[in-house]
C-alpha cells in the first residue's frame, strides 16, 4: 500500500514553512508536518469562506506566532536544558565541582590573556593623542635587540630633530620607600621634565629635580601625605609635594 501523498508544495505552504523556521529545531522535528497540514486546512477553509479578512487573519497569526510563540519555545527548551543539566550536576557533586573548577580556571585564564592583549594591543594609552606617539630605540653593537637611548642622545635628538613635536624620556627603576611604616620596595620611573605636559596627563605624585630630570614616585596608591620618603638606588630622598590638580 502506498502512503497517502500530500498536495504539491504551494507558495503559501513554502511561506508557512519558512515562518516555522523561527521555532526551535526540536519543535519543528516533532510538529512541523502537522502544523503545515493544519495551516493548509485552515487556509483552505478561509478561502472557502471567500473573505480576504479570514485569510489575512490567518497569515497575521502565523507571523505573530513566529515572533511570540517561537521565542517562548526557545526559552522553554533552554530552561528545560538548564534544569536537566543542574539536576545531573546535583546528582554527581564531585564531577560538578571538578567541572566548575575547570571552567573557572579556564575562564580566568582566557580573561587574563584577553585583558593583557587588550591592554597592550588594542586599548589606546590613556594620554592625549595616543596615535601620534612614537617609540625611539637604539640598535647597535651592544646587543641584537633594540634598547633605549642614553640621556645625552635624547637631549641631542630633542634639541636637533625637527621631525617630532617633542621628545620625552623615561627609565624604570626599583628602590625602597619609607613612608613612615618601614621601607617598602617599589618600582618607579625617572622621567624627563616634559613627561606629563607632553602626554597631556595630570601629575599626581612627588616631583623632585634631579639635574635635568625630574622623578615621580608612586607608592602604590597609598596616602603618603606628610610622609618622609626615601629612595635607594642613588636617588636622593624625595620631598613629598601636594598633588597637582
Amino acid at each position, binding site marked *: 500500500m502506498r*502512503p*497517502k501523498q*500530500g498536495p504539491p508544495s504551494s507558495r503559501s505552504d513554502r511561506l508557512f514553512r519558512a515562518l*516555522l523556521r523561527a*521555532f526551535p529545531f526540536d*519543535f519543528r522535528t*516533532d*510538529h512541523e*508536518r*502537522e*502544523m503545515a*497540514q*493544519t*495551516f493548509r*486546512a*485552515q487556509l483552505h477553509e478561509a478561502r472557502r469562506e471567500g473573505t480576504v479578512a479570514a485569510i489575512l*487573519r*490567518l497569515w497575521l*497569526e*502565523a507571523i*505573530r*506566532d*513566529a515572533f511570540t*510563540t*517561537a521565542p*517562548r*519555545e526557545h526559552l*522553554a527548551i533552554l530552561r528545560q536544558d538548564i534544569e536537566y543539566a543542574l539536576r545531573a550536576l546535583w546528582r554527581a557533586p564531585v564531577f560538578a565541582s571538578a567541572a566548575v573548577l575547570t571552567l573557572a580556571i579556564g575562564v580566568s585564564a582566557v580573561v587574563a590573556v584577553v585583558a593583557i592583549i587588550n591592554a597592550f594591543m588594542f586599548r589606546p594609552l590613556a594620554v592625549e593623542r595616543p596615535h601620534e606617539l612614537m617609540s625611539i630605540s637604539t640598535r647597535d653593537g651592544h646587543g641584537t635587540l633594540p634598547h633605549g637611548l642614553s640621556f645625552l642622545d635624547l637631549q641631542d635628538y630633542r634639541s636637533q630633530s625637527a621631525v617630532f613635536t617633542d621628545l620625552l624620556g623615561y627609565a624604570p627603576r626599583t628602590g625602597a620607600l619609607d613612608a613612615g611604616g618601614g621601607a617598602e620596595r617599589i618600582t618607579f620611573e625617572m622621567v624627563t621634565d616634559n613627561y606629563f605636559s607632553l602626554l597631556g596627563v595630570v601629575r599626581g605624585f612627588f616631583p623632585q629635580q634631579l639635574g635635568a630630570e625630574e622623578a615621580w614616585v608612586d607608592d602604590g596608591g597609598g596616602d603618603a601625605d606628610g610622609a618622609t620618603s626615601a629612595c635607594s638606588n642613588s636617588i636622593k630622598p624625595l620631598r613629598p609635594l601636594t598633588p597637582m590638580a
Partner: protein
Amino acid sequence: MSSHRRSVDHLLPLTPPMLHTLVALADGDKHGYAILKEISRRTDGAVLLSAGTLYALVRRATADGLIVETDERPDPALDDERRRYYRLTSLGRRVAAAELARLESIVDMARAKKLIPRRSPA
C-alpha cells in the same frame, strides 16, 4: 496531601487556551486540526487558536503528562494516516476538572456578590 493532589495543584491555574484544549479532548481522541475546530465551534469563533499556539500547548501538555499521543486510529475511512491523535490522560482530566472547579468557585462568589445574575432554575 497526596502526591496526586500536589501534582494537580502544581499545574494550576491553566491558561484559557490550555483549558479549552483539555476540554476539547474530554470526549475522545482528536488530532490537532480537530481540536482547533472543536474549540472554535464551542466558543462560536470567540477562541481561534493558531497552529503555532496549538502545537506549543500540545507540546507542553504532553510534557506535563496531561495528554498523550495515541496509536489507536479511528475508522480507516475517516482517518488520515499522516495525522497524530492526542488523548486526555487521567491526570489531564483531574487537572481540567480542578481548574473548572476553581473557576466555578469564582463565578459562585461573583453571583453571591450580585456581580452577575443568579442562574435561573432549569
